[in-house]
């Protein structure tokens, strides 16, 4: 399987100075990931871990004070290779929506409140291919019915639809041109639980139907568990573990991932849940060595000074932890 996204040693910082105080926030600190074509890839992490910034950089949508200070991001669309960080505006707008699309957080606010949904569809489609209003309407109607959305949506205004419906319409808008690469940023946040399930299912269906690659960024492990194939766990701007969903949920190696999974409440039992002591570091003041060391129960002297490199412990499983020497069985468990 080929890689559709390749990020190598990516470093992106927010550099700002106000009233004489200079501040550097290392939001993305030496991240390398590869997303395979046709998979559903999840980026997990709590608030302040840098995942939203990583998304911005992967999309090439970074603006000052966010500056890429190192590394590269490349897309590989079959025969075409694109360097995301250096491509010109013309290429960028060319691939936007057609090859690469983005479902933003809070999709409900994305739709133009004074235009009917059908017109929004027309705007988006006609920006990329010449099409008449009638054709765009037909196209939209066909696509919506494939996704289980009623035709009446097209003649409605956004405020006439429920929040969940708007979210699904936005997803339909983002994917109608069958882009090869879709980014979804917190697609289920602020939605009711029943609607969340519908959205997760919708995303799965679209990905299966179109064979696209889906990158899902969210802190909600429930979404990852039921949607993605592989998960990368971020902490303090770095990747601390990356593996397939099963491994992350049942057999994680990195202490942070272990804590994270064990602290999630489950409906199958009420035993005491673990909570991680301390709190995530501010990204402008990350601890030396391993960023997790102040909170890690297995901290060693080495962890305080030497940053653990990301090692492949076995096929498809990478971890950044001094405890993991190459054999997973040596990793301590909480």
């Amino acid at each position, binding site marked *: 399987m080929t890689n559709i996204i390749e990020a190598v040693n990516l470093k992106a910082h927010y550099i700002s100075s106000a009233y004489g105080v200079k501040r550097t926030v290392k939001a993305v600190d030496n991240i390398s990931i590869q997303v395979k074509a046709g998979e559903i890839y999840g980026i997990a992490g709590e608030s302040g871990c840098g995942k939203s910034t990583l998304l911005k950089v992967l999309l090439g949508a970074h603006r000052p004070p966010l500056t890429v200070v190192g590394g590269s991001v490349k897309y590989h669309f079959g025969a075409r290779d694109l360097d995301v960080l250096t491509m010109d505006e013309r290429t960028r707008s060319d691939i936007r929506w057609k090859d690469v699309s983005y479902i933003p957080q809070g999709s409900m606010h994305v739709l133009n409140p004074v235009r009917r949904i059908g017109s929004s569809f027309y705007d988006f489609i006609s920006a990329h291919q010449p099409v008449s209003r009638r054709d765009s309407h037909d196209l939209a109607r066909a696509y919506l019915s494939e996704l289980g959305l009623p035709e009446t949506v097209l003649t409605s205004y956004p405020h006439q639809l429920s929040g969940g419906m708007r979210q699904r319409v936005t997803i339909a808008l983002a994917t109608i041109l069958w882009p090869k690469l879709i980014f979804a940023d917190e697609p289920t946040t602020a939605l009711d639980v029943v609607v969340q399930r519908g959205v997760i299912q919708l995303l799965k269906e679209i990905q299966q139907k179109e064979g696209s690659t889906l990158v899902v960024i969210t802190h909600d492990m429930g979404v990852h568990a039921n949607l993605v194939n592989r998960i990368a766990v971020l902490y303090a701007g770095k990747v601390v573990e990356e593996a397939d969903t099963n491994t992350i949920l049942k057999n994680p190696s990195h202490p942070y991932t272990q804590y994270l999974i064990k602290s999630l*409440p489950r409906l199958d039992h009420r035993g005491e849940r673990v909570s991680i002591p301390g709190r995530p570091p501010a990204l402008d003041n990350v601890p030396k060595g391993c960023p997790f060391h102040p909170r890690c129960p297995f901290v060693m002297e080495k962890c305080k000074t030497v940053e653990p490199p990301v090692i492949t412990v076995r096929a498809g499983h990478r971890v950044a932890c001094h405890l993991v020497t190459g054999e997973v069985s040596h990793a301590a468990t909480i």
Partner: protein
Amino acid sequence: MPQPSDSPLLQIEDLTKVFHTRQGFSSKQFHAVDGATLSLQADKPEIFTVAGESGSGKTTLARLILGLEQASTGTLSYKGRSIGALSSREKRAWYYKEVQPVFQDPFATFSPLKRIDHYLYETVYNYKITDRAGANAYIDGILNEVGLSLAEIKGRYPGELSGGQAQRVSIARALITHPSLIVADEPVSMLDASLRMSIVNMFRKLKENQHVSVLYITHDLATAYYAADRIAVMLRGWIVEMGPVEQVLGDPKHPYTQNLKQSIPPINPDAVWNEKMDLAQLDSDAFAHVGCKYANRCPHVMEKCRTHEPPNILHEGRTVKCFLYE
């Protein structure tokens, strides 16, 4: 302080709050809370969860209990006294000492322009908990209960603390007057997943040590299952199922509760969703105005459900508002 009498701590009967929205010349009525009935015992502190989705009325119910809204009909009494009849001065003198809130967003709970300990000292002084000399020691003691210390937070602005710390301070402030009831509105939903459990664990501990009952409002059923003793599930203003949490969430009887439970994404990779849900079901957003509010979405709907309001039936240890169990 625990009340030695038999009177319940909090008693709500047939409580209704109607909002009127004006549209041009007509006005529509919206029953945010519709005939809610529940009670909390005084002698046995518990964590009582009110769960529901957006529009269920859980937040309005919390505001009614806190005295921030006036009910339209029904009774709301605390330790035998009717709250609706209290003036705001009376509330300040007595009720706000007994019932304290914890809000969802710890950074909205405090003014960002004020140091966070300002609220702690204000609470101590305004309710005359101790004199100026004893204030520091008292506040430090309360902060210790929530895992913090006065030295850590003194002089700091809310923005300097993490979400978890700020929320702990918010809880500490609520504890200063030794309330018998804390109304917590989504207290952990804005915190990171790894921090949530520490706050929920803390509520459980406070219930034991400080003898304070907690009314825990949330939409997150998984956390509710872990935290609560009893739970009430709300739908569009109605309490559709209420009882001990193992019963209600372990073996839900009301079709809505069953639907909610099924929709929670399971974390266990062996238990992930297998059946596809019917997406069209999400579209029938119109909740019925006559009869059972869930009639349009209920898989077991009967003729009766479309015309009559279901009664509250006691079934297998909990109350269910559904004709199925008559």
